[in-house]
């Protein structure tokens, strides 16, 4: 039984780590801000969720699990909120999404807000 729980916990940790790295690659490689927002989102939901569930399986039923659930809840509430606020702020400040009907990369309107 303990071995089964360990295996499940390791599977969760490794899968969560893989999702985190995929999101990290996405945030570097994707072409414009709104797609990068999508790449950042996966690390906050699936990556953090699976890693914390893996830690919960290691901890068993105790106060530690309660704290992990609180962290997970906080991340899952605040991360979409801040992503939404970021996207809305970018949109109202005139950052256009990258749209290329001809299949060629276009100007994403980033010149105004480049720093």
């Amino acid at each position, binding site marked *: 039984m303990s071995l089964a729980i360990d295996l499940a916990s390791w599977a969760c940790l490794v899968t969560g780590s893989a999702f985190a790295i995929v999101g990290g690659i996405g945030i570097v490689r994707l072409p414009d801000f709104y797609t990068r927002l999508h790449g950042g989102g996966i690390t906050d939901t699936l990556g953090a969720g699976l890693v914390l569930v893996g830690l919960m399986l290691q901890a068993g039923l105790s106060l530690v699990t309660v704290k992990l659930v609180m*962290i997970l809840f906080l991340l899952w509430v605040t991360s979409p909120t801040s992503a939404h606020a*970021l996207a809305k702020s970018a949109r109202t400040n005139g950052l256009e999404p990258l749209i290329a009907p001809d299949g060629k990369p276009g100007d994403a309107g980033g010149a105004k807000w480049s720093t």
Partner: protein
Amino acid sequence: MFTVAIAAILATMTLALVRAALGPTVFDRILAVNMFGTKTVLLIAVMAFLSNRTDFLDLALLYALVNYVGVIALLRLFRLGGLADPVDGGEG
């Protein structure tokens, strides 16, 4: 196995820092810093289990809170040009 998770989280943090350094718009930088903060929370949580000091989880909770408040404050600063409420009923 915790070491694998820590290595992956550190790699993700590095990639987020790359985007924060490159990143052509200011929103990209805020997104990258937000992601870095979330990964810090995860890193502290896994480190707590690796070193058998689970009281570190309180620090992780605190980091999650501070990170969220920080991002919202940054966006507000960016939108309004200051952290205070507009005095004469401007946009809010």
